[in-house]
């Protein structure tokens, strides 16, 4: 008993020491205690570490936040663009055209950059043979592997892309965290992972099972031989990225992972351990993507992932729900990608400078946020893509669209089918993916996750998307794989194909690009962000037109600034990277962060708030405390922590505890006062002075003579009553209590 009490004290004071003392078997049990202790700890600040800034839409950022003693992980993505260091499977399609067109003459976009790089890299020859010819591994966030997985308490998944690396965590036996994702993200993420596993299967069949845990290409002497561009993707600037590579998870890992995900609706309240109240709100970026609001007794946090004010398919960005946050973790890096291309960035719109003057003008801010420029820009892009597509098929070429943004693909599909019909073209559209059928079925049953225009289709009794009609009319075809027998019988060119994978290293897109790359009438539509120089290496005769397109992936900095003004957080954690370009955000308390740098966030409140039940509050007896005109009351209740709030309720008396609670006396006993009071009660006394040896503390001995014998010792800090008679004793103590402030 005494022993355990000791360890308890040490636990309160030195939580970290305590860690080391407990045996492994008890770990789980004590862990929960430990976390509760830190919950109220004054010593720990909120700590934040950016593990990865990511690379745009497909590779979202990844962070760790320590809040109330809980370790929270935001997103667990994969950098699939790094697949470009691997060579795709060598495929011999018999129908590869013979005519040779010169390489790289028809690329329509971005080739100035491509050319520049070529000039710089003359010293090392980069060609198809420099790529790694082996089963591809997958690049995870390398810093995440440095964290002890068993210490992670909660994982927040903000988008399907943020989920792709999750099976690597969940299959680890030490992983015990709770994973939250919106229902749509969970379902779409699952399909994306299954698709990835399926595409990888084809490669596995080619290379056969791997016996070594460290493949040959990972050895340093091999890496040293690589051209520097590849070396950098593989191992990073200083070689530390190499630890992030993993062989792909299995289908079983994926379903195991899905079992650990708790899916939420938008604005559904989830409670972690009673302490954190968690809600996901739409970020507008794509179907199911979200921002997180985390309410704890100490602080309210918002995790703001890439968000757009212009969503044409998904539920719109619900920024109003983010009001009242103390801290906003701004994790939308999309602006940095835009600014890298100098010509796209032309300072401020005049509206912004006007805004910074009058910061309470909510309406004008809202108006600015909701202006539809971006939406118009996006639909212009789609219209352009669509017209290019039509030009190609009219010229007899086929169109390959390995784009993976669901919202964009759906819009494009609709645009293209409409244009084909209106220009009376009978060109088939194929969607080739192992999950295509399930995906389209899913999209037609999730009205709650779509924008208003789609929801209106529900109300008017129409299907949400027109796939079924297109399929029935044989204008659209779905195939699980490129070698489906049915595909071969229906196949006709020119055609338009939507298929994975945008990295152009795995999936049906590789086969089709190999087939069409030499055809100058064909068109490849791809997203920005891939290094064309490396991506096209395996495709020898690149005569195909390439349209590289950047889509809206987040909010512009001007809008970010206005949004912060609207939401009025106390602190904004802001990427250092964006600070260099933007100076206007200084009007907020900004803390700038960069990759792999841990820092504390200042404590905002000294006190936590407690709700006291009214019936408990009514029972209190208040005492006025002297000069300060403060009234005090002793209270006792049961403290509940629920939904991030402390609540003090009328507790059930525990039978084991003592009947009366200790009370506190303040002030001193004035001797004369005491004697008068005693006299009023009919108690007669005789006083004797005693001075202790050191002379500092004077004690009076009050001998009670009547009605019975008693002795009262009065000193500055203590009064002691001794008598053998209980009623006399209580009479005397009553008298003393009237002189002191008793609480």
């Amino acid at each position, binding site marked *: 008993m005494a022993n355990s009490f000791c360890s308890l004290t040490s636990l309160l004071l030195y939580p970290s020491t305590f860690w080391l003392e407990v045996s492994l078997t008890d770990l*789980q049990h004590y862990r929960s205690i430990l976390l509760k202790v830190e919950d109220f700890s004054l010593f720990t600040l909120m700590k934040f570490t950016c593990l990865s800034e990511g690379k745009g839409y497909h590779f979202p950022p990844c962070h760790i936040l320590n809040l109330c003693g809980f370790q929270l992980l935001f997103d667990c993505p994969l950098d699939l663009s790094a697949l470009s260091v691997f060579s795709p499977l060598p495929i011999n399609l018999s129908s590869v055209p013979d005519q040779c067109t010169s390489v790289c003459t028809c690329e329509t976009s971005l080739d100035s950059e491509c050319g520049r790089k070529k000039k710089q890299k003359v010293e090392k020859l980069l060609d198809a043979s420099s790529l790694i010819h082996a089963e591809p591994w997958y690049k995870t966030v390398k810093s995440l592997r440095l964290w002890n997985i068993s210490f992670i308490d909660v994982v927040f998944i903000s988008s399907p892309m943020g989920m792709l690396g999750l099976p690597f965590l969940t299959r680890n036996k030490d992983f015990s965290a709770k994973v939250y994702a919106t229902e749509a993200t969970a379902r779409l993420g699952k399909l994306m992972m299954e698709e990835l596993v399926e595409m990888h299967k084809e490669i596995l069949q080619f290379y056969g099972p791997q016996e070594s845990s460290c493949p040959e290409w990972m050895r340093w002497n091999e890496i040293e031989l690589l051209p520097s561009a590849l070396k950098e993707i593989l191992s990073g600037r200083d070689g530390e990225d190499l630890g992030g590579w993993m062989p792909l998870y299995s289908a079983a890992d994926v379903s195991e992972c899905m079992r650990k995900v708790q899916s939420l609706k938008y604005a559904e309240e989830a409670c972690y351990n009673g302490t954190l109240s968690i809600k996901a709100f739409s970020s507008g970026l794509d179907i199911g993507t979200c921002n997180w609001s985390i309410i704890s007794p100490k602080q309210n946090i918002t995790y703001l992932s890439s968000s757009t004010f212009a969503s044409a398919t998904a539920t719109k960005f619900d920024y109003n729900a983010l009001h009242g946050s103390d801290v906003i973790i701004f994790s939308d890096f999309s602006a940095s990608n835009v600014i890298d291309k100098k010509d796209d960035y032309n300072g401020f719109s005049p509206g912004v400078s006007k805004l910074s003057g009058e910061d309470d003008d909510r309406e004008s801010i809202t108006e600015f946020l909701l202006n539809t420029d971006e939406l118009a820009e996006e639909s212009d892009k789609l219209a352009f893509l669509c017209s290019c597509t039509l030009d190609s098929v009219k010229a007899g070429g086929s169109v390959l669209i390995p784009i993976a943004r669901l919202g964009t693909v759906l819009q494009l599909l609709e645009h293209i089918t409409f244009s084909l019909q209106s220009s009376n073209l009978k060109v088939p559209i194929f969607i080739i993916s192992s999950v295509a059928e399930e995906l389209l079925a899913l999209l037609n049953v999730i009205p709650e996750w779509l924008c208003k225009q789609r929801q209106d289709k529900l109300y008017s009794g129409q299907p949400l998307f027109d796939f079924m009609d297109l399929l029935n009319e044989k204008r659209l075809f779905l195939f699980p794989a490129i070698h489906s027998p049915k595909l071969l019988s229906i196949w006709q060119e020119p055609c338009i194909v939507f298929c994975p994978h945008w990295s152009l290293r795995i999936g049906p897109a590789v086969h089709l690009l190999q087939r069409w790359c030499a055809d100058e009438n064909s068109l490849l539509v791809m997203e920005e962000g891939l290094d064309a120089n490396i991506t096209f290496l395996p495709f020898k005769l690149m005569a195909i037109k390439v349209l590289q397109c950047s889509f809206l992936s987040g909010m512009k900095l001007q809008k970010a600034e206005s949004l912060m003004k609207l939401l009025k957080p106390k602190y904004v954690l802001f990427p250092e990277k964006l600070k260099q370009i933007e100076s206007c955000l200084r009007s907020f308390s900004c803390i700038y962060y960069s990759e792999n740098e841990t820092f504390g966030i200042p404590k905002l409140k000294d*006190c936590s*708030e407690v709700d006291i039940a009214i019936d408990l509050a009514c029972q209190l007896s208040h005492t006025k405390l002297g000069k300060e005109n403060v009234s005090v009351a002793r209270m006792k209740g049961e403290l509940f922590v629920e939904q991030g709030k402390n609540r003090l309720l009328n507790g059930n008396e525990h039978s084991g505890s003592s009947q*009366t609670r200790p009370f506190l006396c303040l002030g001193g006993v004035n001797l004369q006062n005491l004697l008068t009071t005693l006299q009023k009660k009919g108690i007669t006394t005789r006083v004797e002075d005693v001075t202790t040896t050191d002379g500092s503390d004077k004690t009076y001995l009050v001998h009670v003579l009547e009605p019975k014998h008693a002795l009262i010792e009065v000193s500055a800090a203590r009064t002691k009553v*001794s008598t053998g008679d209980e009623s006399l*004793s209580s009479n005397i*103590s009553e008298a003393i209590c009237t002189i002191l402030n008793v609480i």
Partner: protein
Amino acid sequence: MAIECLILGAGQEVGKSCVVVTINGKRIMFDCGMHMGYLDHRRYPDFSLIPRDASEDFTSSLTCIIVTHFHLDHIGALPYFTEVCGYKGPIYMTYPTKALAPLMLEDYRKVMVDRRGEEEQFSSEHIAECMQKVTAVDLKQTVQVDKELQIRAYYAGHVLGAAMFYAKVGDAAVVYTGDYNMTPDRHLGAAQIDRLQLDLVITESTYATTFRDSKYVREREFLKAVHNCVAGGGKVLIPSFALGRAQELCMLLDDYWERMNLKIPIYFSAGLTIQANIYYKTLINWTSQKVKDSYATRNPFDFKNVCKFERAFINAPGPCVLFATPGMISGGFSLEVFRQWAPHEGNLVTLPGYCVAGTVGHRLMSAKTPTQVNIDQNTQIDVRCQIHQLSFSPHTDAKGIMDLIKFLSPKHVILVHGEKPKMESLKGKIESDFGIQCYFPANNETVSIPSTHYVKADASSTFLRSTLSPNFKFLRASSGGNFSSDDMDMIAKPVLQVCDDRIAEGILTTGRYQNPKIIHLKELVLMSGEESHKLQFALCFPARITKMDENGKLIPLAQEFVPSLLHQLFSKLSNEFSEATIQESDQNIQIESFVVSICSKEKCPHRVSAGPHDISEAVYFCCMWSAADEKLGWKVISIMKKLELSNG
């Protein structure tokens, strides 16, 4: 603070559900239904009773309207209230309810106007405009109606999109269940709700006294009855609402037809119900888990054996099954077909579990065939066909209601949507079983109940940390049992929050210029600027030691026996005080602040005389305790004085 509930409908009856609840200044109308049994003003709730100032309109007197599901007894008066009475404020319902309600309303309007020739209460345009004002919500989505009012929908089973609604203003919260079903059926799941802190639950009580067994038995009975009829060449008429029951029964039949390889046609009357299937297909996520899981392979609302009915088929020969609206044969197509088919013995008519008084369905429920039924003043019909009453109802039975109330444990319960005598008996059961106050007001009555309110205070970290220690005691005590963190997880799953109980003791300070703040005792001393003062009691008295030698002479106390005396005392006191409070050491025994030791002083200031047997070798117990344990101290002393200790 109080919550006021004005019952505008479904008070001691079924029909025109409408409850206006006022919580801390916010006023919510739950449901806005109509009564199918009346054609006069009684069909609508009496909206004039909604409390408002003379100058106020409904829009400013109500904060919002919440509609639980698309049944007419819950939504039938909504277009009238918004378009005719002029309510323009927010209206909330789930996505399926918003999608399906216009169909129900339009169907009803048609029956009333086109077939009965009544004056229309609202037009098609009214319905469309009314639905424009509706905000659709998803399950569990927390909707902030305004700064103070928060609402949330929970799955209710009953029909597609049916929801219970939680509403919270400040610290006060209520749940209005609407109609619900606590057992899953073929197409819908069971009602599901979080454990919430509630002042009030307003629940339906259609089957307040009925206890039902498994639904599958009765489904089989239904299928058998239908199969027997068509096997004998008969026609089956299934009158039903356009939505809900029709889809459920149709799934049942479609599946049965597949399994039994039956080729007899199943018809849906008019285009309405077939069109409704598109809604069901899109809204499949709102059905039961089993139905939901199959969406990718084949949407179960793509019925294989169902086709459209033409009027000419009514008298065509051969067996068939026909779904026709309205459900209670109160008019429309189902009545038209009923006239034709009822007189033939081989035919079958199914009746829904509940029919409103005044409908043909209601008259048939109590009838034994063959019989005569009056359709209107001039028409009487010979009913010779079989009548099968569908006994599987989408409403919860009494056990379900009791389970829900037990689970939610609100402070008060109001019963609506039921029959008075049954409600009365359920009220008795709720009050006796759970000790929860229960009411079942009649229409237009108001019930007022007190509401929860919290006082907001700041709390110092020292105080919050101090609350942890009792919690540790608790954990330590149960660690021997099977209370592991795994168990905690299991408990946590169905529950919204994990509460860990901690006895908290602190000092609430309130000053004129500061927020109330809870601090720890230690902090109060610092804060007050005054010294703390100890008030103690002390008493030194002789032990009763009775050991004598053979000659009856007291044996002088040897010093080495002193510790043994203390230990004797300890073992005796241990019988009186719990293990947790009493502690023993070499020098003393401690019970809370009470400390007793053997007095070593020659002349102790706290000593009282030992009485006549006083001898110099006497052993004295010196006791000291603080004022907090004043009573405890005297209790221990009186026990000690009675104890006899042995010397040796």
